[in-house]
């Protein structure tokens, strides 16, 4: 009961802040609402006992990436703090299409995973540490274990992708090369 109340309150806050992000007049205000949004998502992870994910969410998104957004927005938008948004109808069709694709994706994932017993992460954790199944404090260990066994190749591929992106950014930013 309490869990459901917390979930709906947090979910409502996340959706409301999401709307504020796209309707705020000033880009800096949008970024601020985005930070709050990420903090509430982190709170949602805490209610799911995924405290490692929650902290990483704050550290990477709220504390890292959005700071860079803010940086860019401040540098670009110095003179025109209250810039009007471009004509919403022009981008509306593409936006609707993309939103539709995401919606279909979410529905497809939830339909296809609803039939399974448990998420694969939990399954492999049960295999490795059957005696610690109900210990909520172990999810950092579990996540590390699963990432380096069952999901080793996707994990390495993702890190290669980030490395390539980083090298690409350095190459593009260097003028005298």
């Amino acid at each position: 009961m309490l869990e459901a109340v917390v979930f709906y309150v947090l979910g409502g806050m996340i959706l409301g802040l999401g709307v504020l992000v796209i309707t705020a007049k000033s880009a800096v205000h949008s970024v601020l609402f985005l930070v709050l949004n990420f903090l509430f998502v982190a709170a949602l992870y805490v209610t799911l006992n995924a405290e490692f994910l929650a902290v990483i969410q704050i550290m990477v998104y709220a504390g890292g990436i959005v700071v860079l957004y803010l940086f860019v927005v401040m540098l670009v938008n110095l003179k025109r703090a209250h810039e009007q948004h471009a004509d919403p109808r022009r981008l509306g069709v593409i936006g609707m299409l993309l939103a539709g694709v995401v919606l279909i994706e979410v529905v497809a994932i939830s339909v296809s995973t609803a039939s399974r017993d448990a998420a694969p992460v939990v399954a492999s954790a049960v295999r490795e540490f059957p005696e610690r199944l109900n210990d909520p404090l172990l999810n950092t260990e579990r996540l590390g274990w699963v990432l380096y066994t069952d999901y080793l190749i996707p994990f390495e591929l993702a890190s290669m992708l980030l490395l390539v992106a980083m090298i690409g950014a350095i190459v593009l930013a260097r003028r005298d090369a």
Partner: protein
Amino acid sequence: MLETFAIPLLQAVVVVNSVLVAVTFLVLMERKVIAWAQSRLGPMRVGPHGILQALADPIKLILKEDITPTRADRWVFTIAPIMSLVPALVVFSVVPFGFEFPYWISNINVGLLFIVAVTSIGVYGIILGGWASNSKYPLLSSLRASAQLISYEIAVTITLVSVVLTSGTLNLIGIVEAQRDFELPLLGTGVWFAFTQPVALVLVFIGGLAETNRMPFDLPEAETELTGGFHTEYSGMRFSMFFLAEYANIIVISAVIAIMFFGGWMPPFSNVAALDFLEVIPGWIWLISKVFFVLYMFIWLRATLPRYRYDQLMNIGWKVLIPIALANLVLTAIMKVLVA
């Protein structure tokens, strides 16, 4: 009900007030230590040897007029100091002052990551404060501050990973227990990570100086270039919130260093049987004295070193600290495999 709400609330009140009082006395300590370093007396007029200066300063700040510039972004201007102070105080909810319950508010398994994550939120206060003032020097200062914080956060976090690798846990109590229980060849148990991870200690200390905008990395507040930094346009209570946040962050980083490298609440050299009588002193007093030792080092450096140039600051962060941190991490991993 009592155990889930009332006791943590009471603990939070005690800890937050202690931190705020500690900040006022830390400012006095800073002025006194720097004065002695420069053969002066420092504040002497309020109370014996100026000890009541710590009370006079907050009273003055609270009574001052609170001004909002007319062209400032009113909302963000008000929120910025709060966003800077609140994370600095929230961090203390996971700082353990001892092994047993009443000495910590919450014992979460990702305590160290929590501290890193929450302190990284504090940078918003600085960026937004400079931006919302709608004034050029504060803006320049906040750009400097955010670039500096992000750069040094990488080095510090990578360094913390090597300590986590040594202890095998992200839990702060677990890290202290690891320093108590680890058996080393020749030295036995109870060896602080300051001795097994000396490079990490130096890196975290330098990174901590940079992350809290202290000398010799206090470029965001370089008064000769920026008239005062991101809080130039602030006055009264809102200025003092920035001020409190800055000093609370210094206490946080000192507490992290004391817990991770100086054995937290353990007495020094607990592996030497002749020093067992030190156990008489309670653990939280040991922790607080270690925190103040690190704070003293911070102040000492401020009195000693000149300020770096901005390009030097970035070079140190990216070309010196991060490579050393990575090398230390790899070396730690190799040692861990070899020992095990």
